[in-house]
């Protein structure tokens, strides 16, 4: 083999091994995009610790001269952090658990069973994925009121219990696709051995479905955590989650400081508040990240 081909292979790579030049270009692109993704988070972390002098000083870009921890304290109080955190965790945690259970059952039925009306129901599933929430928000609002859920956590969790609510349809689709990838022989063998449908589901399917369960749980948790549209309409004052607290904090701050200079100062507190809000899902992601990435690959999301 001559020298030219050898260098070419080293630089640009072959099917099995990525070449050096390719890796270099790759890193350049990836680092740039990573910067775009991390930039807002760095911006937030740095702004929240600045005092008013550092904030106005253009020479102070990332690291403030003195750390102003008081911003965090003010944001903590302004958000009513502990009680709002509890509400957020309750809504997101329970919502995600209910989503996993209800959507897995429906997905299992769609993937593994033949029944009359399946095509129509699957069509309706796709339809409910496509409907923008704003189209149905008004009747939903009235329905929640009539059910007596208005202002309570049930206004959000109640929908998750039945496998709907925030992108419930997407989760059913994810589970359906995942269960389809499992070989049919698996549950047939168990059934021949005399196991009933429920037993097959819990002893054979659920342990295998861990990646899908993890993906759905994490997605559902985070989307519940971040949801503000419906939440702002149906959740009452005593159940306010963190994201809504941020809204309230803004209104309070706007009332307090009206001049332009004070608005600048508000920014630090708002950034501190934002930081406090993303910390819990960030920790959850840091813990679940490894399994999440693997899970995503194995879910084979859609055929």
């Amino acid at each position, binding site marked *: 083999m001559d020298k030219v081909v050898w260098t070419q292979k080293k630089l*640009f*790579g*072959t*099917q099995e091994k*990525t070449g050096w030049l*390719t890796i270099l270009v*790759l*890193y350049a*692109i*990836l680092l740039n*995009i*990573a910067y*775009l*993704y991390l930039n*807002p*988070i760095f911006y*937030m972390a740095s702004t929240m610790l600045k005092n008013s002098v550092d904030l106005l000083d253009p020479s102070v870009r990332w690291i403030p001269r003195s750390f102003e921890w008081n911003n965090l304290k003010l944001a903590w109080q302004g958000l009513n952090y502990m009680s709002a955190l509890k509400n957020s965790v309750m809504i997101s945690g329970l919502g995600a658990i209910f989503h996993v259970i*209800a*959507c897995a*059952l*429906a997905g*299992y*039925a769609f993937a593994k*069973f*033949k*029944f009359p009306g*399946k095509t129509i*129901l699957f069509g*309706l599933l796709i339809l*409910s994925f*496509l*409907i*923008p929430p*704003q*189209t149905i*928000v*008004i*009747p939903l609002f009235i*329905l929640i009121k009539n059910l007596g859920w208005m202002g309570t956590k049930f206004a959000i969790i109640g929908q998750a*219990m*039945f496998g*709907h609510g925030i992108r419930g349809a997407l989760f059913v689709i994810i589970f359906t696709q995942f269960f389809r990838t499992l070989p049919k022989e698996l549950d047939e063998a168990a059934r021949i051995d005399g196991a009933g*449908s429920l037993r097959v589901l819990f002893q054979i399917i659920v342990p295998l479905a861990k990646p899908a369960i993890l993906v759905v749980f994490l997605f559902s948790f*985070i989307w519940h*955590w*971040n*949801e503000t*549209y419906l939440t702002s*309409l149906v959740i009452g004052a005593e159940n306010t989650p963190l994201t809504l607290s941020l809204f309230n904090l803004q209104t309070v701050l706007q009332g307090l400081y009206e001049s332009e200079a004070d608005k600048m100062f508000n*920014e630090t507190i*708002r*950034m501190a508040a934002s930081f406090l*809000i993303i910390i819990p899902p960030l920790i959850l*992601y840091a813990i679940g*990240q490894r399994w999440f*990435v693997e899970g*995503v690959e194995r*879910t*084979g999301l*859609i055929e």
Partner: protein
Amino acid sequence: MQKRKRRLSIEVREAFSAYALLTPWLIGLGMFVLYPLTYSLYMSFQDVRITGDGMIMKPIGMLNYKNAFLLDNQFSASLVNYLKESLLIIPIIVLFALLVAILLNMKYPGKALFRAIFFLPVIFATGQVLTEIFYQGAAGLSILDQYNIKPYIQMNVPQVFAEPLLAVLDKFVIVLWYSGVQIIIILAGLQTISKPVYEAAGIDGASPWETFWKITLPALKPFILLNTIYTIVDLFTFPFSPILELIKHHMKYTGYGYASALGWIYFSIVFVVIMLVMLFFKRISRHSDNRR
């Protein structure tokens, strides 16, 4: 005869257990999807007033829809603007997700770290928090100001597209932030292509470039379609969507009937757009089948 009867009973039993599993979801489908959907359709043809005794409805035919297009200049204007913006954003997101997913799927040191970073947007992209950060102007590309690109665009691109283009550039980073799920979908898609196909291509002397166009891209076609649909759905429920705010506003001040009509116009447009995309992909695949 007896055999047939037994088979039938197995089928019946299967259907029965399927419906048992589906029960919670079916109840939810009725309560949270079909009922609200028909009710809002019904309300969109009514004049809805809220009084002390509850809601009073008066049928007014198509008036709400007529008003939306003829009287309400805000709605149609922002709808058209948003559609134009989406027209630019959708291809950007789909192509960007394709690029990133392919990069993340290659083999190199530090891949795990990059993956962890690139999934971050999935965590934050839907939040109020992100809106908060981007209000501070961290969303645009600094290159734009450095090289004075904006005036250049204003002078050289036709007015109809210059405005949405600038709007898109202003929130370019947000657009990229919204491609988290799409990256995941393509990554999952890449896993479905079996390794031996690449190995065979390599033995036949195909370069990575050729294998990308001849193997990877065709195999990814369904995932790209899915991504496009997901992006459309996601985009039209975007927290920054001006339409969303408008509907909320009308719900409060103009009345439920009118807000429902807006919601339905919105839904029909989303639906038509998705149908057009599916048609487009169908034609592409037919075209490439013919060529083969």
